[in-house]
């Protein structure tokens, strides 16, 4: 896929920032959860709006999944989506000190909590490296146990196209699997390019 939004240099810088950021994030998440976190190498791509649902479905694989969305605001802005396959998030209830009996609201709150931790750690890490402040909206549930192809409806997407940064999470010895996707609309990319240029100059 061609990267018409950012130059090759910028792309390399973004990849590097993402790599370092995820490494840091992995360490702090491990401190919160008290278990070792496996993180994939971040993958960066661009998609047009119509392609977003399919891209998310491709990440999450077959079956059903739930998703949490959270906006990030600041110089960099966009939305992060955490996708949890099946009920795998329930596996983390004990790590976040949820009781044994997870009723529907508690299960939902757990998803939001995990999403908040992952999104905050990863995007916070990237923003820190790019020396820019970002804030986060409260997380909200995007989809609850739906077919992966229905996680998000193409008609509801306002952006024309988006930059997609994708990371895969897992915990050793646990079924928990999660994909984190950072989506930035085209018109927010100027700020990202500026921040990446700053980063390139400094190194």
């Amino acid at each position: 896929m061609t990267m018409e939004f950012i130059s090759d240099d910028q792309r390399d810088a973004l990849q590097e920032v993402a790599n370092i950021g995820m490494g840091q994030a992995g360490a702090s998440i491990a401190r919160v959860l008290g278990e070792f976190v496996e993180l994939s190498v971040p993958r960066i791509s661009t998609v047009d709006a119509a392609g977003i649902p399919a891209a998310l479905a491709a990440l999450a694989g077959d079956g059903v999944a739930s998703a949490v969305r959270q906006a990030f605001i600041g110089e960099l802005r966009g939305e992060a989506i955490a996708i949890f396959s099946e009920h795998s998030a329930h596996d983390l209830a004990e790590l976040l000190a949820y009781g044994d009996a997870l009723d529907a609201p508690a299960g939902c709150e757990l998803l939001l909590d995990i999403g908040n931790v992952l999104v905050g750690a990863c995007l916070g890490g990237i923003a820190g490296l790019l020396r820019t402040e970002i804030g986060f909206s409260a997380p909200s549930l995007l989809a609850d146990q739906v077919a992966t192809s229905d996680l998000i409806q193409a008609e509801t997407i306002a952006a024309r196209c988006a930059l997609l940064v994708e990371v895969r999470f897992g915990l050793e010895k646990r079924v928990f699997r999660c994909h984190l996707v950072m989506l930035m609309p085209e018109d927010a990319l100027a700020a990202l390019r500026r921040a990446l240029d700053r980063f390139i100059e400094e190194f």
Partner: protein
Amino acid sequence: MTSLSHPGESCALLGSLVERIDVGIFAVDRTGTVALWNRFMAVHSGKSSSEMLGQNLFAMFPELPRPWLEKKLESVFVLGNNAFTLWELRPYLFRFPHNRPITGGLDTMRQNVTFLPLRTPGGEVSLVCGTVFDYTETALAQHSLHDAIAALNKEKDAQAQLIVKLEAAQNQLLQSEKMASIGQLAAGVAHEINNPIGFVNSNLQTLKKYCEQMLQLISTYEPTEAQITDSGLLSRISNLKQALDIEFLQEDLPALIKESEEGLVRIKKIVEDLKDFSHVNESEWQYADINAGLDSTLNVVWNEVKYKATVDKHYGELPAIECLAAQLNQVFMNLIVNAVQALDESKGMGTITLSTGHQDEWVWVEVRDNGRGMSDETRRRVFEPFFTTKPVGKGTGLGMSVSYNIVQKHHGRIELTTAPDEGSCFRVWVPVKQAQAAAP
């Protein structure tokens, strides 16, 4: 806005803002020791800031979900990012009494809480600040919205049910209108046929008499033949007799007339049956003889039956029952026609058994066939409007649903036993008197 000239002044202003803002603000350090407790928190919890400062939050509020909240605070300390609780999922963090002690609503204040990291100049997160927003009004509004939606949905369901009923009623109306016009047509035809039958019958009677007289005359003449001497005439007579086969003619003529008379009797009977069946002018409840109704109905559909089945009748003795006779006849007709249509023609003539009987205050009519019977699905759905297994144009699927409604109107019931390839048996039960059956 006032510009702040002095750092101390701005600090004091900020302090008073935190104190007075209509949002709960508190802060704890990593050990859970309270470092900030604004007036909102004090007013709603009943614990003043002087009581709270320096104390452990969990010791002062034992009802807090401690392990979970500690984990949450920890994540803010470690990650340096906000964390949240939402009232929709977790109605409240602190059990604060609601803000409508008089007008009522919810027992506890609904809260959204945001946990913010507060950093020291060095960048470490030293305190986590909780901001508690009162969402009780929103929650109340949402509850009443939920209630309204639930009420609307209930209404919608009720309407959907009404629509179903309306459809059933309309189907019935359609069918009964059809039946009424068939009835009227039948009555009209019966009436029209009555006139010619009348004069054909009286002419036939006269004709019969004339024939008898002619034959009498001939038989009187016959013995005189012997006295005829003209041989030409004699041979003409005997040739003619031979050509006409006069002996047969003399025998056959009365037989033909008798047959015609019988035919006329049958026509009259059919006309009577048509009138009976349609009961055109009687849409009122009346006492009627069910056996007679069954017979007249059978006559009306006889053409459909006679080449396909023999009919066995086992009628019991029945009291006259209070009914809408034309409508009950319609039920019998639907049952008989269905029975005939269910027969397997490849097995030759079928048998349709019509039985009636009487038990206590109830009368029953049974139509049994030895046809193809029904599958489980068909048995479950026979009474459903528009359910038919017959080819397009042959069945509308209304017969049994209309019959069901008619029997229902008589406070009766229909029993059905059926087995594939063995046949089906419908038994209609109706009470002798309506008032009794209608009473609970």
